[in-house]
């Protein structure tokens, strides 16, 4: 594997008295796509949200262990700085409803109080929308409400909003589960193209999706990491019998 961008050591997350993640050690490779698979409730989303400290918002959540982004301890960093370095795309498209398409792309800047000149704004918007293949569809209506777009377009807009901030890692929490097959395949193509410049970490329910787009796949089961290896290897020759059963559709 190439350089490691993110490393966790004995990461445990609990909600109240329930231990959801039972000590995960993982090294996420830089500029590759890492997929998290596993049945519902296995802790894959919990793990993802620990990376950018979304659990800070949940009072009963408790995170133990270490997450390191390069050499920096994520939980000793300022949460706002961390989240600028680690972007996130959510399960359901969530563009800011009061903002236009253009304002949504620039939201990361406005929300962080970064002032851009008119020309810079134009460039950022065009660049980000082109990266998510939305530019052609919306270039004539950049000031239209973001909610006027279709679900798939909205999700690409959310991706553009994240990409515009040039984060080191983009976390994707089942980004296609609310979309139709056509929009899904568009997003998958995009992720494939983005991986040259970004490190992508994607949670997915869909094994084919993991197989199609990821370089590295991990398999979570009941809060433990059972498998973590090259995607090809995981799908052809998994270490654990549970993974084998999941992949072959015997449970899930």
């Amino acid at each position, binding site marked *: 594997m190439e350089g490691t961008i993110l490393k966790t050591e004995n990461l445990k997350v609990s909600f109240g008295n329930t231990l959801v993640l039972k000590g995960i050690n993982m090294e996420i490779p830089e500029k590759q796509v890492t997929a998290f698979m596993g049945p519902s409730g296995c802790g894959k989303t919990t793990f993802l949200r620990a990376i*950018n400290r*979304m659990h800070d*918002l949940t*009072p009963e959540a408790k995170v133990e262990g270490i997450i390191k982004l390069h050499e920096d301890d994520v939980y000793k960093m300022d949460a*706002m*700085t*961390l*989240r*600028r370095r680690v*972007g*996130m795309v*959510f*399960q*359901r498209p*969530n*563009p*800011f*409803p*009061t903002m236009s398409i253009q304002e949504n792309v620039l*939201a*990361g800047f*406005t*929300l*962080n*109080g970064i002032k851009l000149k008119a020309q810079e704004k134009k460039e950022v918007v065009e660049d980000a929308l082109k990266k998510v293949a939305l530019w052609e569809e919306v270039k004539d209506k950049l000031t239209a409400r973001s*909610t006027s777009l279709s679900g798939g377009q909205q999700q690409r807009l*959310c991706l553009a*909003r*994240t990409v515009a*901030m040039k984060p080191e890692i983009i976390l994707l929490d089942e980004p296609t589960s609310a979309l139709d097959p056509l929009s899904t395949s568009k997003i998958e193509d995009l992720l494939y193209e983005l991986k040259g410049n970004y490190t992508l970490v994607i949670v997915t329910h869909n094994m084919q999706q993991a197989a199609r787009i990821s370089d590295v796949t991990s398999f979570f089961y009941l809060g433990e990491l059972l498998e973590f290896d090259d995607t090809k290897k995981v799908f052809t020759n998994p270490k654990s019998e549970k993974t084998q059963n999941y992949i072959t559709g015997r449970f899930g």
Partner: protein
Amino acid sequence: MEAISDRGIKRRKFKDKLFRYLVSGLTYCCLAIVFVILFYIFKKGIGSLNWAIFSQLPKPVGETGGGVVNAIVGTLMLVSVASIIAIPFGVSVGIYLADNRGRKMAGRVSLAVDMLQGVPSIVLGIIIYLWVVKPMGGFSALSGSIVLSIMMLPPVIKNTEETLVLIPNTIKEASLALGASYFRTTMKILLPTGIGGIFGGCILGIARVAGEAAPLLFTAFGNPYMNYNILKPVNSLPLVLFNYASSPYDDWHKIAWGATFILVSMVLILNIIVKYFENRWKVQF
């Protein structure tokens, strides 16, 4: 078997119908009462409307004519100052409650707001008389505004909270995930998204206090002259209504009806404004 169930169905259908008529009948009844009241006020009030009522000061007993311009100015002043005090507090508490749902402290705050809602306005008037009027050495518009601002809090708080709670959590998370602070997330994402409901709450609060007379008896007191000084007593429409309607003079009764008309129209217009902007600023998720 068939006969029994058939009868049963007929009975149930009949009951169903009866209940439907009852519900709509009582609704129309209420509506009719409201309309009769409004109609009566408009009928009585419109006769006493003239330019003088909007432009002249009250005349002393014995002279006919005169107006309530000082009361109109006073009401606007009391309500504006009350809004300036109440809205920042109310919206803040609303944000707090929406953010901390389910926590102990939020539960207590919520209970306190409900209690405040139930405190009779005259009691608040007496309290502000003791705490503000007496130490300041006299009745004033400011003390009146303070009472009204306290009365405005519950509707502003409740509306803000309910509006913000309805905003999907994912919108908030999206903002925080971009590295935005809590402050910017609230100011740039949550408040603009909920502006329709929050604005509605503020206007409803204003409409609620604009017609209050009781707490003003001990605070703003009333004033037969024009006053723009916030530290002096000031007149208001509900006070005019109270004083003039309980007087023995026909001419004053007429003016009281005029004041009522103006007051009711103000509240009506505010309600229409709320409906308009709530629809206009409605956000689709």
